[in-house]
């Protein structure tokens, strides 16, 4: 049993081989380079999604009538798997980083958008009355009411979206790129190096865990703590 675990079978590599692959990939810098490449793609795609989805979501959340018109389109696009966009991504963006970024963007856009919409729609009207009483200008309402009131919910949306984005990076890197952990998996499969695949999968898991941990830490920031500490 133990030897099976260590040496594996014909199809599955054992722990020793995985360990060797791990040392090999870390030693020649491939693992680090690919991790950085994947993280870079996720970061860029995720940031673009956040930069577009948060303002749009806040706007739609405060404009119920427009939201009522736009919402069917959102709900139409949302259930389409990010993977279904791969053909379009390749047609529109060719090869290289851009189609992968697009897939990550699509995957993380909707969770952020929906959390921003619902957060903005649920701001208690009382805060706007206070704002009106204090004669807030438009930018002051955005700065002192809308953004801080929605920050905690949007942060949760970002956390979900980052998880999804990291999940999709493998699929995104299966198209037309020559680096990244997703590429490592595809490449390992093509070369029948299941040990590489396993190392890549485990790296993805560990980085995902760290990313989520970072997002959870952000919930302790001063500016959003009021929400999580209210009774």
């Amino acid at each position, binding site marked *: 049993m133990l030897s099976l675990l260590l040496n594996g079978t014909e199809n599955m590599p054992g722990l020793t081989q995985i360990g060797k692959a791990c040392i090999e990939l870390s030693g020649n810098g491939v693992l680090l380079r690919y991790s950085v490449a994947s993280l870079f793609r996720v970061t860029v795609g995720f940031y673009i999604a956040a930069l577009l989805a948060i303002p749009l979501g806040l706007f739609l959340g405060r404009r*119920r009538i427009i939201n009522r018109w736009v919402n069917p389109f959102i709900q139409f696009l949302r259930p389409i798997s990010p993977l279904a966009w791969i053909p379009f991504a390749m047609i529109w963006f060719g090869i290289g980083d851009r189609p992968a970024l697009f897939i990550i963007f699509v995957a993380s856009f909707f969770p952020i958008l929906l959390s921003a919409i619902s957060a903005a729609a649920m701001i208690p009207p009382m805060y706007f009355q206070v704002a009106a009483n204090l004669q807030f200008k438009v930018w002051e309402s955005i700065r002192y009411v809308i953004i801080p009131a929605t920050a905690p919910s949007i942060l949760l949306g970002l956390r979900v979206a980052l998880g999804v984005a990291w999940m999709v990076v493998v699929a995104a890197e299966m198209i037309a790129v020559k680096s990244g952990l997703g590429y490592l998996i595809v490449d390992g499969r093509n070369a029948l190096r299941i040990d590489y695949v396993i190392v890549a999968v485990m790296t993805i898991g560990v980085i995902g865990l760290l990313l989520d941990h970072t997002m959870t830490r952000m919930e302790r920031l001063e500016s959003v703590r009021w929400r999580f500490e209210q009774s």
Partner: protein
Amino acid sequence: MNSPKICLDQVWVEHTNGKTNGHFNLFPWWKRNGCGNGKSHSTPKVVLHDINLEINAGEFVCILGHSGCGKSTLLRVIAGFQPPTAGKVWIDGQRVNGPRPKHVFVFQQGGLFPWLTIAENIALSLRSIRDPGERYNKAQEYLSMVALEGVENDYPHMLSGGMRQRAEIARALAAEPDILLMDEPFSGLDYLTRLHLREEMVNLHVMFPDMTILFVTHDIDEALQLANRLIVLSEPPAKVKCCRPIQVEHPRVLTCSELGKMRSQIYHHLGVHTAL
């Protein structure tokens, strides 16, 4: 005092299916007069029925009535948060057409922004002061006026309900209001805290004698203790059922015969016959 400070002229308010203004507007005061943007066919419910009132500068008016009788609506109409369906509201001879910085509304609870510290909340009323240090000192000054010190840098959720309410009053005072509109400001608090805050209100009225205070409550003792004038509203649709001055000097002893007599009259007006 030739002309009244606040004048309500045949004010009617009708609600259609409970939709209130400003729920989903990005900036509710842009569309202040478009109360219900969704067209509903249900029959409107009359909340305020032909209210005529004149309130002089420096008066402390308590508005009493059953819960849900439209006391708060009346206050919101005066504050300009809600336009009356018919009739006019005048303040200083000008039509009320929206909230004004000098007519400050104090909410029942939770009116402080929970994402700002107490000092930052108060500083919002002091935005005309450019220097942040000076603004902070001024905020502290107002906090000490309501006997609240040492909590400047705390967030609202770290404070007790009574302290939050004091802070909210401080924020209102920092705007240097000439009208203070208080919507059951002490109803969420425990009895002892309420008594303390009543004292504080009496002090504040002495400190700012020109400030007109409209105070909505359902606590008759609170009204008797504080008001120069009592206004009792009837069950909905609300009309002014009784309007009487109270001339007893402060500090008032609630068990004195004059206030006792008044109390039983008000109970009678509110349809309670067993009390006392």
